[in-house]
């Protein structure tokens, strides 16, 4: 079942929470439209701070508001938020230890044809290398809603990124969502899909294709990239013949390399394919076309899986 865009769920959830808690403050950089926060601005004008197109200033102001006791959500396109303001994130949020939530909207290649200036395929890698900030990459509406609910009173700096396209429903509402714990979606004996964020739905569809060929997939979704659920990965590996990681991010420094690091340090030998964006000038196109081009169509994921366990 196709549900809403995670972006919409984020905005609705935050508005609901902020109506009940006047200390929740949203800071935007001319991004209330792209952040679906126009309603928030209309309904709670005293709880939105607009800094204009100035992402460095946005992050610094978030730190200050947090210091003054506010529960702060800084919302800006992930590309600009995590590149332009990286030093502010590092020093003013993470190192200074303010429990601010930075929300990277239109993450990955959400902006499609707008090109590489707007793509955010570096954000996870750069923030993984910053001490004292946790990273959430929700896959569906359920994970997005719970990411935002958990963020309000989270005790540490937090980064959450997602896209703006409607998403497949992946989890039931009674699923347990705990920051730092991955979620088991499927269990099968042949291949393990490890996903994060919105590519989870592509692995889910690949699992269905494989099932018809009597190839059975396990699938774990890692909504929290930092701190990482090493135990779930190790435990899931023991039951399959091969592993494929899928992420809407550069192959450098993302989910796949994190898994590779854990696997090698546990002396586990297993066929492994990392699916992400390679280090090259990226092809232009819609988000969906580009993901397909870089091996993330369900059919391609299924055929990669098939080859891997031959």
């Amino acid at each position, binding site marked *: 079942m196709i549900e809403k865009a995670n972006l919409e769920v984020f905005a609705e959830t935050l508005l609901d929470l902020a109506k009940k808690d006047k200390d929740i403050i949203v800071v935007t950089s001319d991004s209330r439209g792209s952040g679906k926060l126009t309603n928030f601005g209309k309904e709670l004008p005293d709880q939105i701070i607009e800094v204009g197109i100035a992402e460095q200033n946005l992050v*610094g102001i978030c730190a200050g508001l947090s210091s003054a006791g506010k529960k702060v959500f800084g919302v800006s396109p992930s590309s600009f938020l995590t590149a332009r303001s990286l030093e502010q994130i590092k020093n003013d949020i993470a190192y200074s230890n303010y429990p601010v939530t930075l929300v990277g909207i239109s993450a990955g290649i959400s902006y499609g044809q707008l090109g590489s200036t707007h793509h955010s395929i570096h954000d996870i890698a750069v923030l993984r290398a910053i001490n004292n900030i946790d990273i959430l990459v929700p896959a569906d509406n359920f994970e997005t809603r719970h990411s935002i609910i958990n963020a309000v009173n989270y005790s540490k700096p937090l980064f959450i990124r997602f896209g703006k396209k409607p998403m497949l429903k992946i989890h039931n509402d009674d699923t347990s969502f705990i920051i730092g714990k991955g979620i088991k979606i499927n269990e099968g004996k042949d291949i393990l899909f490890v996903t994060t964020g919105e590519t989870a739905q592509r692995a889910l569809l690949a699992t269905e294709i494989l099932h018809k060929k009597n190839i059975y997939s396990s699938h774990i979704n890692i909504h929290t990239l930092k701190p990482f659920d090493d135990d779930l990965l190790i435990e899931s590996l023991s039951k399959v013949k091969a592993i494929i990681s899928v992420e809407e991010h550069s192959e450098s420094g993302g989910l796949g390399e994190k898994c590779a690091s854990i696997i090698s340090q546990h002396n586990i030998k297993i066929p492994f394919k990392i699916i992400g964006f390679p280090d090259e000038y990226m092809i232009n196109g819609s988000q969906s076309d580009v993901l397909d081009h870089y091996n993330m169509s369900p059919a391609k994921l299924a055929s990669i899986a098939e080859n891997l366990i031959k």
Partner: protein
Amino acid sequence: MNLKDLQLKSIEYRKTILEIIYNGKAGHTAGSLSCIDILNVLYNKVLNINPQNFNNTDRNRYIQSKGHSVEALYTVLCDKEFFDKSELKSLNKFNSHFIGHPTKKVNGIEHNTGALGHGLSVAVGIGIGFKLDNKSFKVYTLLGDGELSEGSVWEALTSASKYKLDNLVVIIDRNRLQITGSTEEVNPIEPLADKFKAFGFSVKEINGNSVEELDNIFKTIPFESEKPNLIIANTSKGKGISFIENVVSWHHRVPNDEEYKLALEELNLEQEKLIQ
């Protein structure tokens, strides 16, 4: 604390700055000496920040955006009894919290700084937070003049003006030198007052090494209702020591035995003159 007490404090502080840099074998000597009178008046007359109220968010705030002059901040915080002076002996030593830039690991420090151009946005955020809660506290921040080349400073100025932060006090330590040389040769920043006025600030200019002028100016805040305050504090880099004052190479030079002795002699002489 009267004027003479403040002047004596400044001399005592300058001695401590030199002592800890001399013992720690590193530090930003001249910049700490240029801004120490500002910190003296802030902490002894204006801020009312002390170890008893520091953990309470309902108080004034001070953010030192020019983080490299941390020895001046350590000196004043030590005098305000945030920590014992013996702790300052660990400056720059292995596993010490007393490092070369402000860190919240040291009691009394509000925000981690060191990379330039960061403090003002954070101060603006605090100022907005106070306004949202109708709190009457003020937020003070000290910027270096070389720091003004950072574009993020000017982003922050626009928000301060938009949100009418008359509770924000920006102080520019205008000592006219940076690590390479004269600020006006490295990257000209004048006309400063006109620039800040154009950004919506109420601007005043004083001698930033005169505790008397500093004391007087802080009493007049807010300069104008609904406008953020900006003080251009004209200072001398290395103020108080003849052979350090306005000498570019003293940006982060450490005094040798002879220089340390001479500097203390100069300060002792000043002290004697004041006491007489």
